[in-house]
């Protein structure tokens, strides 16, 4: 496995979505390659940062309008 092979599989690797033999090949490469080791760590951290973040506020007026529209729609359908 070379650097290109690791880059192609980094996403599946951090998701645990690869065959054991492929994982072993990647990990053999990572032992020798500092760049790919950092790439894997940083890609994993990138996913975790977004997964744990809440980048969107939910304003009260947006909520109020949603409920007004839904009430109207429900009344209309009944």
């Amino acid at each position: 496995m070379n650097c290109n092979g690791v880059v192609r599989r980094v996403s599946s690797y951090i998701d645990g979505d690869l065959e054991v033999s492929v994982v072993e090949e990647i990990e053999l490469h990572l032992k020798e390659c500092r760049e790919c080791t950092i790439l894997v760590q940083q890609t994993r951290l990138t996913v975790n940062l977004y997964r744990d973040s809440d980048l969107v506020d939910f304003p009260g007026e947006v909520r109020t309008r949603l409920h007004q529209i839904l009430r109207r729609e429900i009344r209309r359908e009944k």
Partner: protein
Amino acid sequence: MYCATLDMHSIEPGLLANLVKTPTLSTPNPHRLPSNVAREDEHLLVAAAKAGDVSAFEELVNRYERKIFRLTMNITRNREDAEDAMQDAFMKAYSHLDRFQEESRFYTWLVRIAANEALMRLRKRRPNQVSLDEPIESEDDFIPQQIEDWGPSPEQRYAQTEMRDILRSVIDELTPDFRAVFVLRDVEGLSTEETAEAVGISEAAVKSRLLRARLKLRQKLDRHFRQDRKQ
């Protein structure tokens, strides 16, 4: 679980929703669930809503409105479109509730509707920027060269608001098709199969876009997080 033995049709409308109630319509919902968690009582609320219990449907709205707005906002990056997409998604969910087969979670079904609504608006607004079948670029650009450690964890080096600004500005730079897949898989916690269904592409295309979205985001975050950028 005791509820499993209840005959849904014998329950007085509103009673079930009261039993499993979280905040009412008039108060903001302070509870935020992890993206990939649907509460165990969801199917009871859905059954009650299908049987005509409006308050059960309202409870489902209370539960998921924040998450659905976050999803439509993350896909469209436009508040007006995000709000319209969210409203239409809930209205469609209500009027098509009888078609929901309960083979998947209600939340996943709702996410699919909302993602479609958001993507539709995005295509209308920026028809040339959203091609979900565009050719896949090479990975060569992502082969690590002169890669640098980010040093001690960036979460500890940046204040929460500063981190939010960085993450927001970086995800805004992704093209909508990459962003949609990344948001559904990594922020909302949908499976590859569910994401493929929501976006209308193959599972292979989801995996491929997810790989590139993650690599692009890492590359863009690198500009901010290299240790020498902030001591």
